[in-house]
């Protein structure tokens, strides 16, 4: 009997306790800065090194480059960049290896869609995903920078 009464006491006490329920759809959830949401791709910064596509464990990134239209500059510029969000696992490895922070994470996590087609994100979509971009990207896997100072 004693144990049961103790238990009843705990639940009764909880009745007046502070509630933990979030008013989620009404009040948006603020994620911490490091949160890994859908990526933002900066076309200008990308040097088409293909690191992100190579490190991706699920091979959901495909990209292609074209010669720089400015004849005075060397190298390639980004032509297409697609992420198949059906299989992306938001593991953060693509941003980790990017040497120029051209691909970075955002805090946007509301990814539900009505159609599978909507989950195919192209450069236009990813380039305009400019809200809540992550500040600290800690790209420890990138070739030049190496370990964090």
């Amino acid at each position: 009997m004693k144990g049961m009464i103790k238990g009843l006491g705990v639940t009764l006490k909880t009745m007046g306790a502070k509630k933990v329920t979030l008013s989620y759809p009404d009040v948006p959830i603020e994620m911490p800065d490091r949160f890994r949401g859908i990526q933002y791709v900066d076309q200008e910064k990308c040097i088409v090194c293909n690191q992100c596509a190579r490190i991706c464990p699920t091979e959901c990134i495909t990209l292609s480059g074209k010669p720089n239209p400015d004849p005075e500059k060397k190298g390639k510029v980004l032509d297409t960049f697609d992420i198949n969000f059906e299989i992306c696992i938001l593991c953060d490895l693509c941003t980790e290896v990017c040497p120029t922070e051209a691909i970075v994470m955002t805090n946007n996590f509301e990814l539900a869609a009505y159609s599978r087609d909507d989950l195919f994100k192209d450069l236009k979509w990813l380039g305009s995903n400019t809200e809540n971009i992550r500040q600290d990207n800690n790209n420890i896997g990138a070739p030049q920078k190496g370990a964090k100072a």
Partner: protein
Amino acid sequence: MIRTEELLLNVGPQHPSTHGVFRIVVKLDGEIITEATPVMGYLHRGTEKLAENLNFTQIIPYTDRMDYVSAMTNNYVLCHAVEKMMELEVPERAEFLRLIVMELQRIASHLVWWGTYLLDIGALSPFLFAFSDRERILQLFNELCGARLTYNYMRVGGVKWDAPEGWIDRTKQFVKDMRLRLDEYHNLVSGNEIFLSRIKGIGKYDAATAIAYGLSGANLRSTGVEWDLRKTEPYSLYSRFDFDIVTGKNGDCYDRYLCRLGEIEQSIRILEQALEHFPGDGETMGKVPRVIRPPAGEIYVRIESPRGEIGCHIVSKGKAEPYRLKFRRPSFVNLQILPKLLVGESMTNLVTILGGIDIVLGEVDC
């Protein structure tokens, strides 16, 4: 004379108490089980095969998805195996961070078990009590590595992120609160006579049986065997901290219950010490070659996950990808004893015993 018939009952794969897509085919005589056949594989994703085509950094996110209730320990076992193979040094600060997140994860994992186990037994509130506390751990993890469940936090040679500003203090606060909450848990459930009568003496086995079946974790310790890899084969920094191995006596569900709650308490003790001695600054990433290529050879590394001994066996041919990767998943091994325990028990005890083993289907099927 009444003619009776055996009833073949399919429990799962969609059943509230199988904790995922697990299926048991039970033969019932009335409500007494005469035979039980576990059927698994509904969540098989071929992690081990997939790993053969991925380099070691790429495998880490896959380990998150094995035991998704305790991803940090899975991260650790893989990184630890590769580090051992390549004889890499891990900076102290990184090792501290790893230990802290693993112990937090152990608490979170045992909280999930506690809540869902009580839900199986029919009590509704413990589930939400446990999850409201687990939520705080997940929030800490979210601040640390940007994800709540699939962390992908550890790297070969260190950790991805250093602790953000104030994180250590928030963790300290959480650990302090958790001690009080643990007392509340005991008040809410541990003394309840109905609960005790439900789990005392149920699913009993002795130490010899447990060892013969290869059980580990709380399932083994509940029989009184002092086997905790954190103590018996210390890895990480565990040898520096003062904690006890929680053991039971009778090897029944009640002892397993007490073992797990006791482990939460021991984790709190470890965390208190670790947070106290957390180094002020330092590297979080060791000196690691650009491409991780373990030398040709084999290694087996095991650590103590919340569910038991999780092992990682790597066969390397000196390439960036493993030749063969094998995980010894504690849930899978612990599950072996289930058919033996179920015979002669009632349907109600099926739930009690299965819950007491504490399986995670992502790990069973891998």
